[in-house]
């Protein structure tokens, strides 16, 4: 096995450092936020929100694993966030459905009846 291949295998099987997780989480969060801000379809907005939530979850779990003093508390938070996300999606989709029934659209740009 050439040393370069060995190096690559080592690199792939080595435990990734904490920063990698954080970078992935931040990227997911940014993508989700970007989607929330610019997508027009309410359902897609919700999916982006879900992306943001899971980015946070990833960060939490990573911290829980890497920081010895955290004592695994981050994991329980992650479980909590998952539960809340499920509830939020249930309510949110119900609202979207209700809006769709009355207005025949899920375009968030057109839903501005709360304009001041």
């Amino acid at each position, binding site marked *: 096995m050439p040393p370069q291949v060995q190096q690559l295998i080592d690199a792939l099987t080595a435990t990734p450092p904490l920063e990698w997780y954080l970078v992935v989480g931040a990227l997911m969060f940014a993508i989700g936020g970007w989607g929330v801000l610019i997508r027009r379809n309410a359902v897609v*907005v919700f999916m982006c929100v879900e992306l943001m939530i899971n980015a946070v979850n990833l960060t939490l779990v990573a911290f829980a694993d890497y920081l010895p003093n955290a004592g695994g508390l981050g994991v329980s938070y992650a479980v909590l966030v998952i539960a809340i996300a499920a509830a939020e999606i249930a309510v949110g989709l119900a609202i979207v459905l209700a809006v769709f029934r009355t207005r025949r659209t899920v375009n968030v740009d057109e839903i501005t009846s709360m304009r*001041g």
Partner: protein
Amino acid sequence: MQTVGQQLIITAIPTLPALVFLVLVLTGRLLMENAQYVAILGVTISLVFSVFALLFVAGIVPGGGEPIEFSVNWIDLGLGGSFPMGVYIDGLAAVMLVVVCFVSLMIQLYSGAFMEGDKRFAWYYAILNLFTASMLGLVLAPNFIELYVFWELVGLCSYLLVGHWYEKPSARDAAIKAFVVTRIGDAALFVGIIIFWATTGSVAFSDISVAAQSGFLGGSLLTTTVILVFFGAVGKSAQFPLHVWLPDAMEGPTPVSALIHAATMVAAGVYLVARTYDIFVQSPTAMLVIAYIGGFTALMAATMALVKKDIKRVIAYSTVSQLGYMMLGLGLGSYTAGFFHLYNHAFFKALLFLCAGSIIYAMDSYNLFDMGGLWRRMPITFGTMLIAGLSLSGVFPFAGFWSKDAIIASAYDEHYYLLFGMALLTVFLTAFYIFRAIFLAFTGEPRTEPAREAAESPGIMTGPMMLLAFFAVVSGWVGIPEGFGLPVKDYFSEFVHPSEFATTTLGIEAPAFSYALGGISFAAALLGIGLAYTLYVARPEWAGALAARFSWLYTFLDKGWYFDALYGATFVRSAMWLGRATRRFDRNVIGGLVGGIGRGTLGTGGLLQRLQSGGVQNYALFILLSVLIIGVIVGAQYAVLVVGLIALVTITAFAVGTRL
């Protein structure tokens, strides 16, 4: 010492009318005209109890013979002292209690007919009873605070009663005038009370007197304070310069005028001076001020009464004048004579008003020149008014003679010849103006149709009048001076006398009765009656000629020496100016500030309104921006990094914004 039962009886004297007030206020709409029976019952019991108090103090009831005195703590300030509520009845208070109850009872009997069919009949009776209750409470008060409470209640009641027919603008104005003018005096009285409290630590009359004697309060401060208290009495008793409210108060129902003038309102001022006499005598200056204000008021008001056309106003000015006599008597140190005049005056002045009310009831006019020849149609009114007039003029042997003569004699004995001359001139003028009114109203030919058809008033009105007429004759007989030569004792001065302290401080012996002085004052009164007879019965054309000849004087007197015009031009106008200035300040400055704040908020809201686009993504953007800003503030150490991030996000936001 009194037993608890006796104390209860004393307490019931002012409480009963107050209770009647409550009952009538609560059930007046149901009782309607039956309210008078409730009221009369209450006052009658009060009168009986007052007579009991009088007998007790006089020593006729076993266990009595000395002043009644008891009190409870009302407000306890701990170390700061306390304000008690109590009762103190000596001869002075006992006589006053009986007079107030008696006159009030007469007037309430009379009002039943006079006010028949009035819209607010029960309310009228309710206030009449509150008035009586307040006056009785004032009479019983042993300290300044308690007195002041009832003092203000009296003022309030007079306001309500003078303005009883408040549909009439003139009645409304008169009520406000009465209230405001007396309030000036009240303010002075209150300042006086505060000074007493601050310097002596007590508000009880006896304590203050003792404190002043032992030097806690003296010199010019004592004089000032005493004069402030006297100024309160000036307001209530309508003395110069605060006399202007009393003639206007004639807008109230006539029985109310009788009550105000005889027993309740104006007597309060004289009573206050008599009550706190021990304090007053310690300041000779203040006594002199009282004497001169009294003497001047007596003369001034008498001249004003000379030309009035309104029968009630003649009598009103007469009250001002007679109150001046009382103040004169008190100021000169003849305590008994001054109060004796108040006591006699209560009967004949109440009677005069009830007679005037009887005429008004019969012919619905106040104007003397609408009347004439009434003696044939209203014999009882004529007879009683004649008695009252004689008593007021000070004709022997009617009640007024004895007290008036005592005051004039003391002025002479104390060598205040100016005051003596003023008082004597006033006797002459008094006799003239009251007989002018009587001759104009009752003699000659009827001048108008109502006068021709006038009929005597019903028995419920003439009954109290005849009772009062009886007292207008005999009330003075209890105080016939020893020197007169009749084998009767001078019960009054034995019963109502200044304290030993006051007597020794003043160093005045009560003047012995002098036939010469009595004769002079009697002659002055007869002269006045004679002149009135000449001008208004024998030679009526002379009166008109005189008025035309001295028209400037006539107008001057008729306008009441232009006091109303003077006060109108100075105090009223400046108060109005102040009011307008305040209104302008309120409208422009305060209103502008408040309006500005409102408009500013509205404008800012309008600007911020644009942010509320309704689009959910805008809100999300705001949230994101806010979080970033907070992040900047918290993580200031990464400033450069964060600024870059914010720049990035802002650009993104603009990009998003253009798409939104």
